C-alpha cells in the first residue's frame, strides 16, 4: 500500500532531524512555563480586581496564556517540516521516490499532524494542571462545566496552528518567507486589528482568534462574539483546509 509506505518514510524523516525535537520542545516548555507564570501573577492580582473583572475571571484560559508564545514554536515546526524539503533540495529526491504528489504531501502532513496532536494535547493538559496549581484557591477543575472541552480544544488549537503553517509553507516553499509572513500574522495582526472597532470584526475571523475561543470557559462580560467555541474552531479549520488546498494545488502543477 503506497500511502502506508509514505507514512513510514515520513515518520523516519521527521524523527531523524534535530529541528523536530527542538521546535516541539520549545512549544511545550514555553507554553507551560509562561502559562504558569501568568497564572501565578493572576492569582496575586485577583484581590485587587474590580467586580466586573472577577466575574469574567477565567482560570482555564489564564493557564493557556503561554500559548500566545508557544504557538510560534508550533508555527516554526509546521514551516520547517515542509520547507526543509525545499531549502535542502531533498524535495527532488522525495518526489522522485514518490511521484504521486498528493500522496507525498498528505502523507507528510498526516505524520506531522499526528505528532503535533500528541505533543499539543500533552502540553495542553500539562499547562492546565500546572497553571491551576499556580492559581491556588481560584483554580478550575477538569470536571467543571466546559473545562475538559477547553483543555482538549487547547491541544486541537495548537495542532491546527501547526497544520496551517504546513499548508502555507507548501505554498511559499521558502522557510524564511513562510516564517516572515506567519509570525507577524499570528503575533501582531490580530492584536492590531483589535484596536479599531471596524477591523475588530474582521480580526475575529482570523484563524488564531476564532480558534482560541475554544479555550475560553468563562466568556468576557457582554461578549458579542458571533460564534461559539466549536464554531470558532470550525472557522480555524476552514483556514487550515484552505491553506492545504492551496499548497496541494501549487505542488501539483509546479516544477520541483
Amino acid at each position, binding site marked *: 500500500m*503506497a500511502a502506508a*509506505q*509514505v507514512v*513510514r*518514510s*515520513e515518520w*523516519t*524523516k521527521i524523527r*531523524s*532531524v*534535530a*529541528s523536530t525535537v527542538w521546535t516541539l520542545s520549545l512549544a511545550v516548555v514555553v507554553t507551560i512555563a509562561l502559562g504558569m507564570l501568568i497564572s501565578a501573577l493572576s492569582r496575586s492580582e485577583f484581590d485587587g480586581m474590580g467586580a466586573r473583572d472577577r466575574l469574567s475571571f477565567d482560570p482555564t484560559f489564564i493557564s493557556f496564556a503561554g500559548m500566545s508564545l508557544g504557538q510560534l514554536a508550533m508555527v516554526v515546526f509546521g514551516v520547517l517540516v515542509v520547507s*526543509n*524539503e525545499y531549502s*535542502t*533540495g*531533498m*524535495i*527532488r*529526491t*522525495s*518526489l*522522485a*521516490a*514518490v*511521484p*504521486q504528489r498528493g500522496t507525498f504531501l498528505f502523507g507528510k502532513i498526516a505524520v506531522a499532524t499526528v505528532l503535533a496532536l500528541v505533543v499539543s494535547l500533552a502540553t495542553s493538559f500539562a499547562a492546565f494542571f500546572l497553571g491551576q496549581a499556580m492559581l491556588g484557591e481560584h483554580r478550575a477543575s477538569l470536571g467543571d462545566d466546559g473545562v475538559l472541552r477547553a483543555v482538549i480544544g487547547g491541544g486541537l488549537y495548537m495542532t491546527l496552528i501547526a497544520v496551517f503553517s504546513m499548508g502555507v509553507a507548501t505554498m511559499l516553499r521558502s522557510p524564511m518567507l513562510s516564517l516572515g509572513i506567519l509570525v507577524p500574522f499570528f503575533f501582531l495582526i490580530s492584536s492590531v486589528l483589535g484596536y479599531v472597532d471596524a477591523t475588530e470584526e474582521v480580526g475575529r475571523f482570523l484563524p488564531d482568534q476564532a480558534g482560541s475561543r475554544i479555550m475560553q470557559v468563562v466568556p468576557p462580560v457582554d461578549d458579542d462574539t458571533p460564534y461559539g467555541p466549536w464554531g470558532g474552531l470550525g472557522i480555524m479549520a476552514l483556514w487550515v483546509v484552505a491553506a492545504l488546498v492551496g499548497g496541494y494545488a501549487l505542488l501539483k*502543477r509546479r*516544477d*520541483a
Partner: protein
Amino acid sequence: MIELEGLTKRYGEKVAVNDLTFTVRPGIVTGFLGPNGAGKSTTMRMILGLDRPTAGDVRIDGTHYDRLKDPLTCIGALLEAKGVHPGRSAYHHLLCLAQSNGIPRRRVHEVLDTVGLTAVARKKAKGFSLGMGQRLGIAAALLGDPRILMFDEPVNGLDPEGIHWIRTLMKTLAAQGRTVFVSSHLMSEMALTADHLVVIGQGRLLADTSMADFIERNSRSYVRIRSPQRERLLDVLHRAGITAVESGNGALEVDGSKAEHIGELAARNQLVLHELSPQQASLEEAFMQLTAESVEYHAHADAPVPRQQWGDGWKRG
C-alpha cells in the same frame, strides 16, 4: 529503456530543451554530453517527472514516471543538486527512501557497503565531503536495484580513485544488462565510459551516435603548415589539387595528405616552411566544434576557431 519524444521545456521566452527525440537502450552506457547550460539537467528532471515538459513525452519502459509503482525499483537517479537534508544521517536518508518504495532495510546496509559509506552511515550528511555526498547520492540510486540508472555529472567532486570507481561501476551495471544514462560536460570522460553518445547544445539534439562511430569520424588526422610565403604556398597546393583550410594564427591545415608529400611539394617549389606537422584531432576538440555554435557562455579569449566542414556529416535533424 528511456524514450524521449519531442521533449521540450520552455521557461517563458527561453527554450531550455528543444524537441529532443532519442532512446536510451539497455546493456550499454549512454553518455549525455553537452556544454554547461545545454539542458542536460532539465532533461533529466523531466525524465523523473520533476519538471513538466512544455511539449513532448518521455517514457520509462513504456510508462510515464508518475505511473510507476515504487519508481526507485525501476529507475534510480543521481541528480546534480545534492538533494539530501544536511541534518539527517546517511542511514536515515536511505532508510526513508527505502521505506517510501517498500524496499527492505537490508538493502540500505548493502548499498552503504557498496559505496563505502558504512563507517560514516550514522554521521550527519552536512559533514560529508563533496565526494562522500556524491557516493551517498549513488547509494540512493542503487537502493531499489533498478533496471535503469541515471547519473547527472557523477564524477564531479570525486577524487581519482572515486572517478575510477564510478567508471567501473557504470560499466558493470551496463554489463548486467541495465540501462545506464550518464551526463557529463567532459568529452574525455565520456570517451572512457560511454558506448553510445547523445550530444546536445542549447537544448537541441546535435548527435545520437555510437562512441566507436564518433571516434572514427572525429579522430581524423591532418597536417598543419606554417609558411612566410603563404600566398604562394596556397597557390602551389591548389595546383596540386590539395585543399587547405585556414586555421587561424596564419597556419593552414590540410586534410587527407601526408606531411612528406607536402614537404616535397614545398621543396620542389622552393618554399620556406616554418612548420609542417602531422596532427591528430582530439575528441575534446571535435566535441567543442560540434557545440561551438550552441555554447551559451563563451569564454571570449582564445576561443577555438570553428572549422566548418567538420561534424556536419553526422549531425542529426
